[in-house]
C-alpha cells in the first residue's frame, strides 16, 4: 500500500460523488465504517450519503462518548442515542453489522482518557475480522479533536495494508465554535503528537494556530505558553466570502499584542486538509533549514478551525513530526441547524498507487 506523503495530487470528493464514481466499479472492497453518534444532525449525514457502499459484509463501529464533567451530558446523551438508532437503521437496511463502542472522554481529573479506551475496543473487535481488501472510512464529524487525532493515527499504524479514508460533515452554521460557555482544559499536547516547548532563551518556539471563530482557545494556550513567533493560519477560501475576515477580526488582539502582520499569515482553504499540510510544510521546511537553528527550533500547531483543517493538522503532526497543542472544552452545546455537505478525503490506498 502506498504511504508516501505529500502526494503529487490530492483526492477528495463530496460523499455522493465518491459513491457515484467509484461504486460499483470499486466493488470487492469491504467497508469498515467508524463513526460517532454525536449530538447533532450531521452525525447521521455521511452514512446516509454513502449508504450504497454498505453491504452485508460491512461493519459499522459506532462510538458513543460519555462525559460526566459536562453539565449537559444527560441531555446530549439523549441526542446520541437517537443518532445511534438512526445510524443503526441505515446500516441494518443494507444488511450491515453494527457494533457499539462506548468510551469516556475525561477521567475525574479532566485528563483525556477516551483514546486508550477506543484503541483497546478497535483492537479487540477487529482481531476477529477478515480485513484483507478492505477500506476504513473514519467519519470524524462528531469526534472531539482530542480523540480524532489518535483514532486516525491508530488506523494508519495498525492497518497499513488497508485503504484509509476520512469523512467529514460540517454543521451549516459554525456558531457552536464560538458560543460555548464551558471552561477549557489546560492546553496540552494531543497524544500521540507530543511536542516540545523550550524555556531556554537560546531556543525558538514557534506556534501555528489554525484560527476559528473562538478566541478563548487561543487565550487558553497563550496563558500557558509564551511563543516567540506566531504564524496564524486562516481559512481562505472559506464557506462564505466574509468568513476569512471575520476570523481575522475575532483575533485582532492576537495580531496587535504579538505584532503579527498580514505577511505572517498562512492561508489555505477551509475544506482542504492537503493544501493546509502543504502550506505548513513549506513554512516548516524553510524555518528548519536555517543553518544551525534546526535542532533549536520547536514548532507546534493548534487546530481551532474546521474539522477539515484539523485533518490537515493531523497530517502535519504525522508527517512533519509537529506537536499538536490543544485545549478541549469540558462540555458541548449542540448546534441546532442543518448539516452541511459531506466530504470524503482519501488518505491512503490504491488510488495513489503507481504500480
Amino acid at each position: 500500500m502506498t504511504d508516501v506523503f505529500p502526494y503529487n495530487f490530492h483526492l477528495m470528493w463530496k460523499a455522493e460523488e465518491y459513491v457515484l464514481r467509484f461504486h460499483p466499479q470499486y466493488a470487492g472492497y469491504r467497508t469498515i465504517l467508524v463513526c460517532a453518534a454525536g449530538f447533532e444532525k450531521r452525525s447521521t449525514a455521511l452514512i446516509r450519503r454513502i449508504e450504497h457502499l454498505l453491504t452485508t459484509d460491512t461493519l459499522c463501529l459506532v462510538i458513543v462518548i460519555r462525559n460526566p464533567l459536562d453539565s449537559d451530558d444527560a441531555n446530549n446523551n439523549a441526542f446520541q442515542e437517537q443518532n445511534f438508532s438512526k445510524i443503526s437503521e441505515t446500516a441494518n437496511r443494507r444488511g450491515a453489522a453494527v457494533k457499539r463502542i462506548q468510551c469516556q472522554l475525561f477521567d475525574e481529573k479532566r485528563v483525556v482518557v477516551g483514546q486508550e479506551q477506543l484503541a483497546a475496543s478497535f483492537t479487540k473487535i477487529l482481531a476477529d475480522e477478515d480485513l484483507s481488501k478492505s477500506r476504513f472510512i473514519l467519519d470524524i464529524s462528531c469526534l472531539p479533536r482530542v480523540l480524532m487525532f489518535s483514532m486516525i493515527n491508530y488506523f494508519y499504524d495498525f492497518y497499513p495494508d488497508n485503504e484509509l479514508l476520512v469523512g467529514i460533515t460540517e454543521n451549516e452554521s459554525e456558531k457552536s465554535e464560538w458560543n460555548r460557555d464551558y471552561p477549557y482544559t489546560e492546553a496540552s499536547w494531543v497524544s500521540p503528537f507530543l511536542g516540545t516547548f523550550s524555556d531556554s532563551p537560546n531556543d525558538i518556539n514557534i506556534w501555528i494556530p489554525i484560527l476559528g471563530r473562538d478566541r478563548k482557545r487561543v487565550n487558553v494556550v497563550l496563558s500557558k505558553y509564551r511563543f516567540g513567533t506566531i504564524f496564524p493560519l486562516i481559512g481562505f477560501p472559506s464557506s462564505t466570502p466574509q468568513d476569512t475576515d471575520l476570523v481575522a477580526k475575532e483575533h485582532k488582539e492576537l495580531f496587535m499584542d504579538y505584532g503579527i502582520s498580514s505577511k505572517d499569515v498562512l492561508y489555505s482553504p477551509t475544506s482542504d486538509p492537503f493544501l493546509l499540510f502543504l502550506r505548513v510544510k513549506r513554512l516548516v521546511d524553510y524555518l528548519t533549514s536555517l543553518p544551525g537553528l534546526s535542532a533549536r527550533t520547536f514548532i507546534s500547531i493548534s487546530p481551532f478551525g474546521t474539522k477539515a483543517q484539523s485533518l490537515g493538522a493531523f497530517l502535519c503532526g504525522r508527517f512533519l513530526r509537529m506537536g499538536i497543542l490543544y485545549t478541549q472544552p469540558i462540555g458541548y452545546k449542540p448546534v441546532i441547524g442543518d448539516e452541511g455537505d459531506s466530504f470524503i478525503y482519501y488518505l491512503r490506498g490504491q488510488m495513489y498507487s503507481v504500480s
Partner: protein
Amino acid sequence: MQHEAVVWERISALFPSSRLHEIEELRFMSAYKFDAYEGYRTGDRFASNLLRFLSNFKGQELDDALTMATKIIFISAKEMHELSMEVYYKIKLKLLDIIINDKAAELEPWEYGKAYSKYYLDYLEKSLFVAMSDSSKIDYFRRHAQVDNESIISTYKIDVDALIQYGKKNEERNPHADYENKKFIFLIDDFSGSGYTFLRQLQKFHDRWYDHIKYRNIFFCPYIITDSAFEKISRSYSEQIPPEDGVSFEILPTLKIPLNHTVTDQNCMIFGESKIHPKNILSLCDTYYHESIEDDHTRKNGGVKYGFGNSGLLVVKHDNSPNDSLFLIWFKDHKCNTALRDWNPLFPRIPRHKNLK
C-alpha cells in the same frame, strides 16, 4: 503614524459610541489588508479615504455608508496567490480525470497514481495556459505550478500564427512548444463578476485560435467568480463556441461569491438578517448616481449604477476595484461634468480604458 491616528479620531467623532467597535475593526482591517490597496498613492491610507468617502454623505446616510464599508470583501495579494495555487491543483486533478477517461481500456476509474506516473506529463505538454487579463497572476501561477514557459501565454490577443511558427522552430528543443498539438486550453483570470467580459473574450479567443489549433477542451479557471457570472457563462458559452466544432467547455471555479452576497439580491445575507441595510445602500446608489459615469460598453450591459450588469458586489481586489461593485466604492473622475466630479471613493478604480482626449 500620528496623522493616521488623528484621521481615525475624526472618523470616530462622526458616530455615536455604539459604532466604535465597528470603527476599531475597520482600523484593524486597514492595517491588516486595506492599506495595501494598489490604487492608493504614496502617503495615502484607507483611513484618509474613509474620511473623504464619509464626507460624501449626510445625516442618516452616514450610518449606511459606514455599514457598507464594514462589509467590503477585500481580496489581498496574498489571498489571490493562494487562489492561483488552488487553481493549479484543480487543473491537475482535471487532467488526471481526462486521462482516466481517455485510457478507460487500460486504467480502472480509480487508478489516479498510474495515470499520474504514466501519462500526466504527456497531457501537460498538450496543455496551454492562457492569461485573460493582466491581473491574472499568470507569472505566479507559472512559478508555482512549474509549468513550462512555452505552455504559458500571457495574453490571448497574441498573433497565433507567429506563435505556431515560433513553436515549430523550437519544438525539437522543447516539446511544449508544439502549439498545433495543444488539446487542452486553460483560460486563467482573476475575477469574473458579471460574465459579460469573459463571454466577449471567449468569442474573440475561439475565433482567433481555433483556426490554428484544434483543441478539444476549454477550461475557464477564474480565481473568483460570482454565482451569476457562473450561470451566465454556463448558459451562454455555446453562442461563442459553435457546437459543430466539438469543443467541450467547463468552468473550474475556486472562490465563488454566492448570489446572497450581492446587495441586489432579495435574499442578501451580507448584513445578516437585516433587509433594511441593502435597501438603504441601493437607495444611496439611486441618490448619487448620474448617467454621465457610463460609457458605451457599460451602457450596453445595464450600466454600473448597482455595479456593472447589476452585479451588486462589495468586492475590492488588492490591485483594483472591479466595476461590478457598487460605483459608490470606486468611482473617481475629476474630469466629469456633474456633481460626481467631487465624489470621493473608498477604493479608487484604475480604469482599464483611459480616455486620452
